[in-house]
């Protein structure tokens, strides 16, 4: 393997911001909370970061950005047992999730924010101003920012966006029904939340510092389809995605956008929001980076689309058979690309498998 002359920041900047193919593809991954512990049992050194161990290119600047709920810091435990904890969040919603580092999505138990009236009377007003208490610890964030930026990694701020926030606040059922039954409320909700995100993100960019990019998470699809129709996305979500991304671009920074699921029906609109890179491009939801890149025509870069089910076979020959031709196709088509699974790595993937993936990548990542 030949060494590469460009560092991670230069590689990812070229791919994500400039949409060009530098000397190699990028390499990045998300790991479930309990994967590292499992891998330590399999011989992973405990004293090094996954970035050091696997040469990941992108660093999410450690530390919480800002709490976007109306009543930040008011999360309270209402019940717990040996395995789970039930809590009320700053939106008055009661959710249950696994304790410790066990992965999974939370159970939706109860939601207080069920109508425009409750929104207006209790939750809207606290979201209207700049509130530095939303930042858990500004000094820690500044230290974390400085330390991160001293590295050669491509450093990002990260935050969820309006759709995920709406889901946290209203729950799936009320949110999706209200998109049909109360569209004015949804517009008002998204507008207020968007302004809130912009206010606090801008403050962070001005006062903490500018990273190399900003990474937003907003799951818009599940395995079979997008949650909402392309029309509904255009009408109710698109304007708010675009507003935030425009602000990030005004700071000269690129946007990485994460969504799970089958988002192909929304893809044209998502590209039009101005994202610079799409991640994670789930194979089991029928998403194909080659087809999407053909459609997008170098307007955006891509990260992901390596089928997690292949990783989970722990069959090294199967890994090679699936991923090497894929990397070769991506190289041949000159797609600005960052290697990543199509979601994240669970503990069922063995350390030996992931080490093999990294080795395989290094042998086939040169453009």
């Amino acid at each position, binding site marked *: 393997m030949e060494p590469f002359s460009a560092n991670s920041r230069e590689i990812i900047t070229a791919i994500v911001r400039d949409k060009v193919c530098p000397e190699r593809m990028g390499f990045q991954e998300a790991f479930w909370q309990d994967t590292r512990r499992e891998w330590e049992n399999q011989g992973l050194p405990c004293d090094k970061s996954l970035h050091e161990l696997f040469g990941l290119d992108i660093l999410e600047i450690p530390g919480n950005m800002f709490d976007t709920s109306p009543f930040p810091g008011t999360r309270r435990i209402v019940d717990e047992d040996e395995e*789970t904890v039930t809590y009320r969040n700053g939106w008055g919603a009661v959710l*249950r*999730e*696994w304790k410790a580092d066990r*992965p*999974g*999505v*939370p*159970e*939706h138990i109860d939601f207080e924010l069920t109508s425009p009236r409750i929104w207006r009377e209790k939750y809207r007003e606290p979201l209207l101003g700049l509130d530095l208490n939303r930042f858990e610890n500004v000094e820690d964030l500044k230290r974390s920012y400085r330390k991160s930026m001293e590295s050669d990694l491509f450093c990002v701020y990260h935050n969820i966006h309006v759709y995920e926030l709406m889901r946290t606040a209203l729950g*799936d*059922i009320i949110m*999706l*029904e209200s*998109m*049909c*039954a109360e569209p004015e409320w949804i517009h008002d909700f998204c507008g207020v939340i968007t302004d809130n995100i912009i206010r606090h993100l801008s403050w962070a960019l001005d006062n903490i510092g500018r990273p190399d990019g900003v990474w937003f998470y907003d799951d818009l699809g*599940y*395995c*079979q*389809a*997008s*949650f*909402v*129709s392309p029309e*509904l996305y255009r009408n109710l979500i698109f304007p708010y995605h675009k507003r935030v991304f425009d602000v990030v671009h005004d700071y000269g920074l690129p946007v990485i956008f994460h969504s799970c699921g089958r988002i192909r*029906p929304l893809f044209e609109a998502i590209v039009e929001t101005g994202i610079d890179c799409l991640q994670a491009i789930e194979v*089991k*939801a029928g998403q194909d980076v080659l087809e999407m890149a053909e459609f997008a025509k170098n307007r955006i870069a891509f990260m992901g689309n390596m089928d*997690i*089910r292949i990783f*989970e076979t722990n069959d090294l020959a199967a890994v090679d058979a699936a991923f090497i031709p894929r990397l070769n196709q991506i190289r041949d088509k000159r797609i600005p690309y960052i290697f990543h699974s199509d979601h994240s790595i*669970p*503990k*069922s993937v063995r350390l030996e498998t992931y080490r093999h993936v990294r080795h395989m990548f290094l042998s086939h990542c040169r453009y």
Partner: protein
Amino acid sequence: MNAIVREIAVCVERGKVDAKSPHPPDLKGREGADELTVKALHFGQSPQIILTEGLIAGMGVVGEKFRRNEIYLPDVLMSARAMTAAMNHIRPYFLSGDVQHKGKIVLGTVQGDLHDIGKKIVGMFFEGGGWNVIDLGVDAGMEKYLAAIDEHNPEAVGLSALLTTTMVNMEKITRAVKKKYPNVKVLIGGAPITEEYKNKIGADAYSPDPQGALEFLNSTLV
């Protein structure tokens, strides 16, 4: 088909809950599934006909459109809401025996998984298809399924899982159910599930969409 019952089917299909509901915009101000069901019962329409030719027929169209990605979850949920509004008036007739469910199905998200929305939506389609749904909630283990089968004597059980790490629990539950209750059909579904996995664990049916699961129930057990 009676005109009112046909209108109920349209209201369910379009997600028109009641006269106050602004959705869908082109039916604003018109009576919805709620009022029309009251009216139909008042005029002596058989609740079984209302259920079969109104609610089940309407939800059947919704299921087909949803399977073809012609409509999306918000539309489905509005239809389910309209169906529920009508069903609230039909429910007493289940108790009196004037209306019969097609059968019972026990549904749950398997142990280790707290994900709820997929199972809930499938349950709505089953209910809208005329099935009595017993919902075990989330994180349901083998003992919970077996106890529910013992208590409710269902024709089928449905297992849901979101994660590859939790779908493995389907195998344990499926094998236990098939061993103790060989006549109870086991349906599985969720993001990581495939037909191949269904065959591997010995389940009876897998469908990537709710309508397919409902069709399995109707064709196999009715």
